[in-house]
């Protein structure tokens, strides 16, 4: 788990409870607070662009990686490094900008775009409400 903010820490804790071995990487020790006192996974303090940090976190043996630091371009670069250099099969990257999320998804980097999800959900809600009012 590269980047352990609200999203990263929640995904890390859920995966850990489902039996995965999980190591979180974050630049800030605040991430440990978010993981909570019961955290039984690994934690590496450092930046995901630093290959020493990635290797300390065990990327060489990882089956999957989630990249969700607070920078779109940082996530895009780290995601590609994990795919190409460390040959991790399952890499998912959080990208807030819908255009960049699509651009990289089309080129083989799986992206998740919360902005696009919000746009879709909000549109659907308004349309559903309008449809209910009209009927």
């Amino acid at each position: 788990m590269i980047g352990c903010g609200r999203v990263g820490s929640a995904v890390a804790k859920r995966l850990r409870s489902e039996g995965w071995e999980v190591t979180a990487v974050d630049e800030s020790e605040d991430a440990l607070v978010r993981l909570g006192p019961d955290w039984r996974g690994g934690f590496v303090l450092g930046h995901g662009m630093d290959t020493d940090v990635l290797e300390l976190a065990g990327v060489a043996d990882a089956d999957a990686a989630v990249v969700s630091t607070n920078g779109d371009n940082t996530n895009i670069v780290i995601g590609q490094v994990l795919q190409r250099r460390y040959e991790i099969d399952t890499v998912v990257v959080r990208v807030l900008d819908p255009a960049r999320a699509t651009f990289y998804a089309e080129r083989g980097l799986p992206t998740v775009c919360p902005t696009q999800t919000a746009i879709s959900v909000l549109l659907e809600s308004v349309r559903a409400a309008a449809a209910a009012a009209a009927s």
Partner: protein
Amino acid sequence: MYVLVAGGGKVGANSTRTLLEMGHEVTLIEQRPDRFARLEEEFGPVVMRGDATEISVLERAGIARPPELLLAVTGDDEDNLVISQIGKEGYGVGKAIARVNDPRNQQHFDLLGITQTVCATTSILGLVEHEVPEHGLVTLLELQREGLKVVEVQIAKGAPVVAARAGGVTLPKDARLISVFRHGRTELVEPTTVLRPGDQVLAVVSDDSAPALRKALLGS
């Protein structure tokens, strides 16, 4: 030539000025309002305000033409990498030159196919090494795409090649001696050139064979 410059710091602003003086068409993208205002005063409509890692901003700047040259010279390596990738892979930009701010990130540019990079720190350290050679081989020029470098070696007094003819020196297979600088003059290396202590030899060598070349010329 049409050149797109992403990032209006010292590197971007000075490149823009020079390119304009040379008669090229330039668009410079800068995100920060304070910087943008100063740049606009000097360059007028050449400067555009926006985040150059956003595809819509790049499109407004003419990335789809595409420019003959894209300079990704912001102060952020991830941004420079993404700008170069979008330009090359998305819009067929032929030549992208990216600035590497932190030399530790060079490997990521290499891995992701952004082969033309400039790193001030690496250049300065190269010059320092030139003044204070530590390992015997001084790298003068890296040809990243070819995996070759041009190096300089000073032949020391007790080196194994002293008094040998260049043609008789056993070199690693992907290494060639180019020239010898001695007594203020440079001559090209011929098989008959005799190597002497104090000679400054220029050679071209693959990255892998550099240690073997050093050993061949200087001993262990």
